[in-house]
């Protein structure tokens, strides 16, 4: 096990890489990398929030995209209404102020997570996977039929949100905003999983029988975890809507949930930093392979399989040689 | 019949066995003793091919069996009652008994499900219950019955009396004595020393993955020093 790299080294290297990326991109004249990596940061955020559920809460959700989608749609709908200057449902004024809309996106995603979570947590295991999928698909079809907001065609934003002291339309500014939120969420999650709450959560994931016998109402803890995960995904959704300046029901589709799950697994389940690595590897591979060949999937699929076969705990586990 | 020579075994990167050797002869009852976590079960798993052996050799009926898949070992005639019961929770009692039943070596009088019911009448009342609906002791009975149903030549009992009521336990010891008479070789891991002394011929004591003592019943029974040093009694 000579090639093991200490966890902190990887994390510091990652942090340095992400912090210096805009300058590096500038230096090499590859500005488009900034927007690519912004996307990577946002997907990382979503993947980390999913890792909180799967890797720590044992809550294998195949409906996580729903919360990304909700966050994105909240942002887009508020933007749309402020753009056409028409109050939402005739009551609430639209807005393009990030300080207002993003918290709202988080809160509304969290609220949906609360509802979906409290119903879904009656089940467990495979059934939990499927019931979360069911709720996400319902929202997907709802969005497809949402004529007012473009249905399947989606909704364009024409510009990013306003954030005081920042010009989000400037890709570098926006990049650092996303990096900030990812770092913040990672830090919060990191504390969270080590805390008493986190310990209970991991315990509940491991043996729900014992956790109950210790006098802990596990479902409440899992629900809170589900809501926190939903909130993180909601934030990712809000950022994603800004990044692409476009939202569509595709954001709620199970394939995105599946992709997020694959990013988590690829990076390493239950490692928080792993999913960042997973999202980065996934999106970079997808991007670069497609540049070289139209048949990129023929290579992409087997690469994923190789990672499963040869890296026991995902890429992060592979690097740190954690068993 | 069974000869284990100098085997090592690892769990990932941590070594669990450091050169273990032992022998079990025909119609002999041999015990493997030691405190918790010393490597008894690992030795058994190595014999069964459930953990890979790093070095050394395991022979059964003069044929090398390490490196072979566990089903071949079982078919060659080793029956295992694993620790912690490990019955199949999603099969009924009857299915648990029948699923793997076989007479691989065409023995004259193979066990039938009725024989098992005679040994453990309790199970008869539970035939259509799922494994995980049984009480702990019932599961233990099932695990023993299941192992007998493959008609082994060597029976390995890893804490097979755990959770059994005193009467049943006595029954099992008596049963083992009879099996031994019939020519079955038996390797037992158990904590009830007095009962073991009554039927066993040879003993091995393990500590930290090594055999640290071996000898006949007579010498162990009276050696308070060994018993207290390695077994804590």
């Amino acid at each position, binding site marked *: 096990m000579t090639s093991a790299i200490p966890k902190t080294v990887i994390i510091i290297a990652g942090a340095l890489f992400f912090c210096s990326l805009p300058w590096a991109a500038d230096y090499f004249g590859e500005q488009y990398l900034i927007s690519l990596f912004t996307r990577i940061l946002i997907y990382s955020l979503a993947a980390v929030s999913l890792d909180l559920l799967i890797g720590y809460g044992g809550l294998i959700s195949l409906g996580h995209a729903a919360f990304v989608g909700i966050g994105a749609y909240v942002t887009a709908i508020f933007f749309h209404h402020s753009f056409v200057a028409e109050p939402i449902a005739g009551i609430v004024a639209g807005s393009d102020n990030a300080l207002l809309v993003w918290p709202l996106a988080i809160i509304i995603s969290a609220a949906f997570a609360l509802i979906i979570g409290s119903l879904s947590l009656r089940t467990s295991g495979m059934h939990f996977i499927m019931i979360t999928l069911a709720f996400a698909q319902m929202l997907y079809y709802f969005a497809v039929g949402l004529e007012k907001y473009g249905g399947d065609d989606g909704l364009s934003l024409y510009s990013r949100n306003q954030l005081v002291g920042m010009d989000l339309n400037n890709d570098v500014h926006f990049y650092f905003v996303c990096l900030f939120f990812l770092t913040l969420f990672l830090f919060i999650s990191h504390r969270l999983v080590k805390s008493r*709450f986190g*310990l209970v959560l991991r315990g509940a994931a491991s*043996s729900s029988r014992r956790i109950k016998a210790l006098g802990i109402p596990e479902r409440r803890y899992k629900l809170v975890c589900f809501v926190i995960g939903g909130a993180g995904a909601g934030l990712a959704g809000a950022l994603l809507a800004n990044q692409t300046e476009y939202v569509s029901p595709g954001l709620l589709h199970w394939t995105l949930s599946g992709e997020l799950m694959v990013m988590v697994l690829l990076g390493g389940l239950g490692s928080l930093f792993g999913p960042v690595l997973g999202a980065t590897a996934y999106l970079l591979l997808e991007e670069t392979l497609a540049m070289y060949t139209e048949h990129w999937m023929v290579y992409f699929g087997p690469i994923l399989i190789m990672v499963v076969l040869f890296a026991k705990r995902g890429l992060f586990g592979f690097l740190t040689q954690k068993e | 019949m069974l000869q284990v020579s100098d085997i090592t075994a690892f769990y990932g990167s941590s070594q669990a066995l450091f050169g273990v050797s032992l022998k079990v002869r025909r119609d002999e009852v041999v015990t493997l*003793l030691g405190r918790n976590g010393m490597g008894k079960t690992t030795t058994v798993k190595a014999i069964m091919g459930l953990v890979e052996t790093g070095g050394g050799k395991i022979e059964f009926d003069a044929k090398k069996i390490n490196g072979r898949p566990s089903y071949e070992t079982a078919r060659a005639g080793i029956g295992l009652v694993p620790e*912690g019961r490990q019955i199949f929770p999603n099969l009924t009692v009857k299915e648990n008994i029948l699923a793997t039943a076989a007479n691989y070596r065409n023995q004259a009088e193979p066990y039938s499900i009725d024989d098992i019911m005679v040994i453990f009448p309790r199970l008869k009342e539970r035939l259509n219950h799922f494994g995980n609906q049984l009480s702990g002791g019932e599961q233990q009975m099932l695990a023993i019955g299941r192992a007998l149903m493959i008609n082994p030549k060597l029976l390995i009992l890893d804490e097979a009396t755990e959770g059994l009521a*005193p*009467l*049943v336990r006595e029954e099992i010891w008596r049963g083992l004595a009879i099996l031994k008479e019939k020519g079955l070789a038996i390797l037992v891991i158990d904590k009830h*020393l007095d009962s073991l002394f009554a039927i066993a011929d040879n003993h091995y004591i393990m500590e930290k993955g090594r055999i640290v003592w071996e000898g006949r019943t007579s010498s162990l029974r009276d050696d308070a020093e060994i018993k207290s040093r390695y077994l*804590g009694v």
Partner: protein
Amino acid sequence: MADYILQVKGLCKSFGAVQASQDLSFGIQRGHIHALIGPNGAGKTTVLNLLSGELQPDSGSILLNSEEINKLPVHKRVKAGLGRSFQITSIFNDLSVAENMALAILAGRGHNFRFWKNAMAVDIVQHTLTEALARVDLSGRAEQQAGRLSHGEKRQLEVGMALVGGPQLLMLDEPMAGQGAGGTVELQKLISGLKGTTTILLVEHDMDVVFSLADQISVIVYGHCIASGSPEEIRRNSEVQNAYLGEH
């Protein structure tokens, strides 16, 4: 009159055709070690499950400190003072041994919606963890993932976690099982050290342990309580000898 911490009246539970508890009534005096013995499948674990709330009785009532707890869910009963260990080991396989123990220590102490401070750094954990592990001889295994312990070590942890919670009434389901010959002796000492401070309901097949520890013994056969009394009374009871003890 004796001070009963727990009273059970007319408890019945059946699984389909199997009558696992039939009109069970008994009481446990505060500070006693009360043993529950009986043949395999007699319904002992079922009684613990009914008391702890994992199973709902078909009829009958359970009084803890003279209050009915029939309707309470598992976790509320724990708050009310019940703690238990399991016959079929039920530890947190994915957590380290130390984390298992820490969780057991923290569980009973205040709520756990604390999101910031490292759980292992909480004062009470710092103070008690080392001793709690030492008590069940797992000090050297603190960092091991619990799922990778040997069977006996898991059993040690199983019992250790039940002991650390500090319940009023501790229910132990075959604590000696899997402990090994030496471990049994140690654990027996440990339990007898709790005598007087913690009330214990002990289910056990090791009769040496039962007769040396118990203040009171109830014998269950086919869901019925066929005898209840002091160890001496039980030892002499011929019905018990036939059904359970044999020549013991």
